[in-house]
């Protein structure tokens, strides 16, 4: 008994040290965000003192330089709209191609699955040109682009779930005189809720943090948060470290809040997505 208790204590201490190590990068950035920009690179591991502390000056400067609040609004708009469109439309598509069995729908399913393994660089150039030609290079158009790229994984996850729903439920509804549209929204969609949460979480994490796609498609006119952060790296590799620290903190903050609010769904969603994907 003594021995196990001792072992437990050691385990707890090891985990505690690791937890501190895991959190320290974020805390160090937070600490440096309150220091003058010339004191950051030289002494990153010292607390701000009377000489180096400058309050929220980095924040006001960083926000002004990058247009952070506009970028935040843009990220929020693109993420929320894209995820809503993806969840609704791919759920409908997945239901259709799973319930209507034909060579065509089977082929479609395989093309959707295939698209999951294609890296972005493969279609980066041609997709950007297509978006320009079709005038999708604006905050509304990019929602459709995200639907195109998100369709693969989302249709795949929804299809897997639809297969497990017994046909009888939908049939009973149809026999009761409902048409498939009513049936989908009244009966199927509520059943899909758990997988819809998984699909939504996975797409939020992807789209919110995505850098290259929005840079190429709308980057010359609009900035999302990742673009705003990267923008701080000037043309010749010089970085205003003060503004950078403040922007890193502001970029992480919404993610941590979102994580703490929906932790259970996020962890479950990530596991479900990984196991099936």
């Amino acid at each position, binding site marked *: 008994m003594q021995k196990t208790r001792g072992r437990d204590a050691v385990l707890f201490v090891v985990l505690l040290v690791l937890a501190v190590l895991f959190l320290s990068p974020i805390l160090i950035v937070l600490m440096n965000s309150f220091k003058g920009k010339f004191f950051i690179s030289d002494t990153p591991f010292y607390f701000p003192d009377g000489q180096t502390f400058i309050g929220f000056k980095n924040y006001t400067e960083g926000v002004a330089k990058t247009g952070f609040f506009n970028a935040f609004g843009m990220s929020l708009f693109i993420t929320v709209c894209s995820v809503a469109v993806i969840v609704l439309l791919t759920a409908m598509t997945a239901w259709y191609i799973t319930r209507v069995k034909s060579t065509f729908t089977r082929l479609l399913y395989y093309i959707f699955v295939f*698209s999951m393994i294609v890296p972005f660089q493969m279609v980066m150039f041609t997709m950007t040109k297509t978006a320009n030609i079709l005038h999708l290079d604006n905050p509304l158009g990019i929602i459709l682009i995200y639907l195109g790229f998100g369709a693969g994984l989302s249709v795949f996850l929804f299809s897997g779930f639809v297969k497990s729903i017994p046909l009888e439920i939908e049939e009973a509804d149809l026999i009761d005189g409902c048409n498939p549209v009513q049936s989908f929204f009244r009966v199927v969609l509520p059943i899909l809720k758990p997988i819809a949460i998984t699909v939504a979480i996975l797409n939020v994490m992807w789209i919110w943090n995505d850098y290259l796609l929005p840079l190429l498609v709308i980057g010359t006119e609009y900035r999302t948060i990742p673009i705003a952060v990267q923008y701080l790296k000037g043309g010749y590799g010089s970085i205003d470290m003060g503004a950078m620290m403040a922007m890193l903190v502001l970029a992480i903050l919404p993610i941590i809040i979102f994580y703490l609010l929906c932790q259970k769904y996020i962890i479950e969603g990530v596991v479900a997505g990984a196991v099936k994907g």
Partner: protein
Amino acid sequence: MSGGIFLTKSIKKYFALFALPTILVFTVIFIIPFLLGVYLSFTEFTTVTDAKWIGFGNYVKAFSNKDFLNALWFTLQFTVVAVITVNVFAFLLALMLTRGKKGTNLFRTIFFMPNLIGGIVLGYIWQLILNGVLMKFEVTLTVSAKYGFWGLIILMNWQLIGYMMIIYIAGIQNVSKDVIEAAKIDGCTRFGILRNVTIPLVMPSITICLFLTLSNSFKLFDQNLALTAGAPSKETSMLALDIYNTFYGSVGYEGVGQAKAVVFFVLVALIALIQLAATRRREVEN
């Protein structure tokens, strides 16, 4: 079964509503650019409309390009080291966190968190910290490719350990307590149980994690761009960054960039096929 047909028939009429919007967008945004990309890799072009067929010329150029070969080698080395380190640490953490002790949930929450932070932000966080440490030795991250390499490895571990840990925890918790009790009664040591009972039973989780880290490491872009941007010169460029620089770094190399992208795609697809085969074989065995 007849009911299934009834259902199919009544849904089929609603193709335009249910399936068409996604299929249309998917075709325009993915299928056409994909096919066009394959075609353009065999041509010389600067915009999509002025393509001239040149056969395998771009591929020859890609494979005789020093930067590309360097990026390929760097990516392969990085992927091997990242896959091993991330999975070993994640598995050990998962073992420590599945013993039902106090504070387990809090630790899990903390270890998983870095995974949610985007690649660009991760890159700059670690640039600050690694440069701060390296300063004590009077060098910076971009002095030599080996600093960039190990910097990326540390970053990748910080980002992915928590994620893989969560999957391992789910796997370990599925191992029934009875099996472990039985092994104990049979006189198995702690290590014996781990080797002969736990690890074989969490094999599905191990496969998933191996391939998740494999494809994540192989396709890395944002972190690479933010941490070193390939410096010194292009020595720490990974494949995705090299392809990006070939396209947008200089005019006239779009064809070569597209050929590199096709090669990149083939390699990623190969990894996915091996994964599929591994998963299938395991399912047959079980």
